[in-house]
């Protein structure tokens, strides 16, 4: 964490990797348009995506690809926040504007609330954030405490991780653990052992950003294992297919973690298409791209599947639960191919 403006930190950002140059995949002529029919009619749930950094076009594409619900974990916005008000506004946007914006596209938006590990290193601010966190943790549609855990694996990160595990216990909410990019194996083990030490039921804990090296231990200890399909640094979807072939679908889920980096909000539908093409049974695909995430986070008591399983036509003039999608002078989606503008 760069606290001194004159210091040039070498701490990589969320998506950087020191080996990124070696990991750029070779070009393949696999065009998404050619594969979309494989997933026609499927429903997806992305349990980890940072929509606050994404555009309206993303929402439109996601809805079209079958994503019906998402969870947006509170995380780092790319630069350190300098005051409590920034956190308040950010948390409010997760339960307010972003949730509303998502609803405009027929996508149900949930979130998890937490102080992220990077900013846990700013102790003064972290203390203030912890004071207001309960007001956000209890909000409607907050399905967990997250994403919390380690980045640099400092003492302060551990302190606030532990405090937030206690908050999760008090609020009876699932926990979404962000495992570190560097020294991942040790960070993952440490995150799990601390959670167990605090008496958390592993079935209430989703360990995120797994890879081939961490998955076995996470599953063996009874935690949920989430995988992030994120180009260059985390899982690729061909590797993901191999993981599912090896471990099956129990307690495994996929997410995109799409954010302000070079990432893909369609990571789940694309992976589902690849799985289908590789002959993974439909039920397994459904579990890892939809059902498991719902089962894990529904322990919050905040997920009602009828909110997104009832037929929803992407007609912006349609009523959804008795309410119009269009609010405050919003215009319906227009046919961009039409020459006439009315």
């Amino acid at each position, binding site marked *: 964490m760069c606290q001194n403006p004159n210091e040039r930190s070498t701490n990589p950002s969320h998506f950087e990797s020191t080996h990124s140059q070696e990991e750029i995949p070779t070009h393949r002529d696999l065009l998404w348009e050619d594969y979309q029919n494989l997933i026609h009619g499927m429903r997806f749930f992305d349990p980890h995506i940072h929509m606050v950094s994404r555009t309206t076009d993303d929402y439109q594409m996601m809805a079209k690809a079958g994503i019906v619900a998402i969870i947006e974990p509170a995380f780092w916005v790319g630069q350190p926040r300098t005051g409590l008000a920034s956190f308040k506004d950010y948390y409010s946007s997760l339960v307010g504007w972003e949730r509303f914006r998502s609803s405009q596209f027929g996508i149900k938006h949930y979130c998890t609330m937490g102080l992220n590990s990077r900013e846990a290193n700013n102790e003064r601010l972290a203390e203030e954030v912890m004071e207001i966190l309960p007001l956000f943790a209890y909000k409607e*549609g907050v399905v967990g405490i997250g994403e919390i855990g380690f980045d640099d694996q400092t003492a302060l990160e551990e302190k606030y991780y532990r405090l937030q595990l206690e908050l999760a216990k008090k609020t009876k909410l699932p926990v979404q653990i962000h495992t570190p990019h560097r020294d991942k194996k040790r960070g993952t083990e440490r995150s799990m052992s601390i959670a167990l030490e605090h008496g958390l039921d592993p079935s209430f804990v989703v360990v995120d950003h797994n890879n081939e090296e961490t998955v076995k231990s996470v599953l063996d200890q009874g935690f949920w294992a989430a995988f992030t399909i994120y180009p260059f640094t985390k899982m690729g979807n061909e590797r993901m297919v191999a993981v599912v072939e090896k471990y099956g679908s129990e307690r495994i889920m996929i997410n995109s973690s799409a954010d302000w980096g070079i990432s893909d909000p369609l990571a789940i539908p694309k992976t589902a298409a690849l799985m289908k093409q590789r002959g993974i049974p439909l039920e397994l695909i459904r579990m890892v791209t939809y059902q498991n995430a719902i089962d894990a986070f529904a322990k919050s008591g905040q997920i009602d599947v009828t909110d997104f399983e009832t037929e929803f036509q992407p007609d912006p003039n349609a009523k959804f639960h008795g309410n119009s999608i269009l609010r405050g002078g919003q215009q319906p989606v227009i046919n961009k191919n039409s020459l006439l503008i009315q």
Partner: protein
Amino acid sequence: MANVPTNLTQFLFEQTTKKEREWLEDQVGFNDLGLMTGFVATPRFLSKKNISYDSKTRGDLVPHLPGFEVDGWNLVRLARVWLLLHLPIEPKEQFIKNIETLFDTAELNELVALYSVLPLLPYPSEWLPRATDAVRSNMGFVFDAIALQNPYPELYFPEIAWNQLVLKTIFNGKPIHWIYGMDRRKNKELAIAISDFISERMAAGRTVPLQIWRLLSAFVDVTMDSKLLSLLVSGTEAEKEVAALVCSESSEPRIRSLLTKFPDLELSIQKGELDWSKFESIPE
């Protein structure tokens, strides 16, 4: 407890289960922060069912505040309003800070409850900036909570803010007859803005919600005669009726005289068969 109308408490408890009632009673025993956390956590402990609200109870929940209605509310919204009325109102600075903190950290449904309680809170002028901000909101439920069926704007909004509220209600295609006190706060500035809006829409070949004409009738001047005449002659049936109502309510003799050429309409107005309530359907 002194601030909480007895009827409201009784009504709320009639809607709750024993367990829910006990939870609510626990919350009001806590300190400020505990009560505020309870306000946030309400949906985790109470059902979101719509409250049953019959015409017998209507208007009686808060006897000194006509216009305070809970029609269409769910139990969580009602319970949140009730919880807020238990926050200690002294010292004033602390009370204001607590309400502001809740606004600052609120999600949509909490905002709806906060705007719903405004007419019941002490220090009403303190909430004016929040209330006028809500009128600017793009979030429909937030806008509705302040603009529709809420007595706060009529009581406390200055004219310019009131007019914005009415115009935005029209612009959002929402029913203006749900603005509490709408007829009492008609004014010339508003009539001019609506008249402009109607002209703009007509020039573009677009329609307007017909009942907005009712906000003009007391202020129509002679420059409007050709517009009204064209509606009386070649409008749809509903447009003819609206134009006739405007003419009949105008204090301008030349406008009123337009109606004499349409005796059928004049007669049905005189007989009380035609009035503005005919146009109070919710716009699609």
